[in-house]
C-alpha cells in the first residue's frame, strides 16, 4: 500500500473512532456495540501503520480476494453502514428502555396512591 493509502486509511479510521465516541456520548449508540467498532478500528489502524503487519495482512488478503483494494473500499463502506444500523437499533432500544422505566414507575406509583410509601407513617 502507498504512503497516501496508509494516510487515507488512518484518517478514515480516526474519523470512524471519533464518530463512534460522539455517538456513545450522545446516547445514540450503545457502548457495547461501540466497543466492537473501537477495538476493530484501532486494530485496523495498527495494521496500517506497522509495516510488517501490513505486509502480512496484504499477503493474506491477496490470497483470499483477487482485488484487495476494491474489497477494502467495500469493507469501509460496509463498516459505516453497520454503524448506522446499530445507531438505529440503539435509538430504538433507548426508547423502549425509557418507556419500560416510565411504565414501571407509574404503575408502582398508581398502586401506591400517594406515590410516597412512607407518607402514612408521618
Amino acid at each position: 500500500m502507498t504512503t497516501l493509502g496508509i494516510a487515507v486509511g488512518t484518517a478514515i479510521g480516526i474519523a470512524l473512532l471519533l464518530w463512534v465516541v460522539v455517538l456513545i456520548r450522545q446516547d445514540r449508540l450503545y457502548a457495547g456495540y461501540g466497543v466492537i467498532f473501537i477495538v476493530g478500528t484501532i486494530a485496523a489502524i495498527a495494521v496500517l501503520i506497522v509495516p510488517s503487519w501490513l505486509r502480512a495482512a496484504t499477503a493474506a488478503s491477496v490470497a483470499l480476494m483477487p482485488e484487495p483494494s476494491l474489497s477494502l473500499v467495500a469493507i469501509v463502506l460496509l463498516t459505516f453502514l453497520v454503524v448506522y444500523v446499530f445507531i438505529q437499533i440503539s435509538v430504538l432500544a433507548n426508547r423502549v428502555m425509557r418507556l419500560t422505566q416510565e411504565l414501571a414507575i407509574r404503575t408502582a406509583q398508581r398502586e401506591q396512591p400517594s406515590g410516597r410509601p412512607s407518607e402514612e407513617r408521618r
Partner: protein
Amino acid sequence: MDTSTASPHRTLVAIPAYNEAATIRNVVERVRLNLPDCDLVVVNDGSTDATDAVLAGSGATVVAHLCNLGYGRAIQTAVLYAERADYDRLVTLDADGQHDPAQVRPLLAEFDGGQWDLLIGSRYVVSRSYGGVPFGRRLGMQLFSSLVGLMTGRRVYDTTSGLKIIGRQTFKALRNWQFIDFHAEALVYLMRLGFRIGEAPITVEERHHGTTMYSALSHIKYPLKTTLMVVLGLIEASLTRRRMS
C-alpha cells in the same frame, strides 16, 4: 455510637432483582426486620421466573420492568423513583442475599455524618487486597480500582459492590447521565463532578442460589466497555462542569 435511632431522613431501600425467586422473599423480610423505618422497593427487572409471584404480598413496592434492561438501568429506575417520591437517600442491595441488611444501619450512620454524597459498602477497603477472589475477577477489580484512582486521584477498592447509599444530591447527575452502568464509570463521573464518594467496610455471604450476571463473553466485553465508559465519564464530567461554570 447508637445506630438504632431512626433517622429524620426519608430512606428508600431498592433491590434490583432478575430471576431471584429463590432468595428475594427472604431478602425483603430481612430488610423489613432490620430497617423498619425505611421504605422498600424491588425493581423486578423483567424476571422470567417466579420472582413476581414471590413478591406478591411481601409488603414491598414492586417496580416491574416489562423486559430485562440490565442492572445499571434497574438502579437508574430506582434513582428515578426515589427522586420523584422525594427521598433523601437511596440504599441499594443485591437480591441474592449476599448483603446482610443489618449492616446497612452503621453505613447509614456514617452517611449521616455528612462526609459523603455516596457511600459504598466495601468488601476490600480494610484489607485492600482481593485475596480469595478468582483470578479473572481479581484482575478486573484491580484494573478498575486503579483506573478510578488514576482518573480521580482517589482509589475506590470495591467498584462493583451492590450495597451503596446514594444521597439525593447525586440523583440528578445519575438520572441525566445516559450511559450509566453504575460501576467504575459512574464513580469516576460522580467524583469528577465533585461528589464525595467513600467506602465503609462490610462483609458479604456467598451466593447460594441463581447465577452471576456475568457470562463468559462478558469477561472480555465488560472490561473493554467499562474502560471506554470510564474515559467517556471523565469527558462528560469535564464538559458538564464547563457548562455549569
